[in-house]
């Protein structure tokens, strides 16, 4: 019984990993991780995304910037989640150094990731102006600060 479970467990993991890989591919093919279609300049966002994508301990990245705000959401590969706090700290520090003039908001939280992704899609399609984007970023920032 135990052996059977272990076996099925392994099988499950394999398919899962495949699926999650497919997921990432899809996400990347869909968009470049930044909102290029918007009228706002997404240069800093693209640079941040480029940097994060090169890191091995980061899987998916979505970045949005507006005014002096840089909202960075990313996902950590599952096996690296043990070091999540350390990675978060590290990423935050690096981004601060890279963008001294910006107020950096970064999070590895899945909900923040989804929210940022949504915002980015909206910016692509609806051409939001800076005020609207700022308001949305503020909302996401507040959510990310919430403690249990």
């Amino acid at each position, binding site marked *: 019984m135990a052996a059977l479970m272990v076996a099925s467990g392994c099988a499950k993991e394999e398919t*899962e990993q495949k*699926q999650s890989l497919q997921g990432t591919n899809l996400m990347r093919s869909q968009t470049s991780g930044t909102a290029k279609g918007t009228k706002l300049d997404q240069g800093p966002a693209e640079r941040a995304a480029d940097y994060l994508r090169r890191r091995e301990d980061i899987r998916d990245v979505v970045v949005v910037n507006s005014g002096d705000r840089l909202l960075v959401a990313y996902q950590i590969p*599952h096996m690296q989640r043990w070091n*999540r706090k350390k990675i978060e700290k590290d990423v935050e520090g690096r981004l601060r150094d890279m963008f001294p003039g910006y107020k950096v908001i970064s999070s590895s939280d899945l909900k923040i990731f989804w929210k940022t992704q949504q915002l980015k899609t909206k910016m692509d399609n609806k051409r939001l102006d800076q005020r609207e984007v700022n308001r949305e970023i503020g909302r996401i920032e507040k959510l990310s600060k919430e403690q249990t």
Partner: protein
Amino acid sequence: MLTMFFWAFVVGGLICVIGQILMDVFKLTPAHTLTILVVTGAILDGLGLYEPLIDFAGAGATIPITSFGNSLVHGAMQEAEKHGIVGVLTGMFEVTSVGISAAIVFGFIGALLFRPKG
């Protein structure tokens, strides 16, 4: 996301196996077993080991009773950072209150709605 489900299953299951071993091998009552697990959770958080486990296994670490001890320590530490040593006492139930209040509320509703079936 699916990986998360897998690890929640494995880690949660393993914590339950530890409980089963305490009950079967050491012949402890369920009350003793759960008490030991709660205290263990508190100690692990004191050592800074429980948060990474939650990051890794999600509900596999938050659903077992060990997380109860973890969040008690967590609440106490959060307040202690703000208010110093007094915060240890005042912050204790800050994070955990939901488990207890849910159990109290639903316990009472249960008593209103149900009779023991035997």
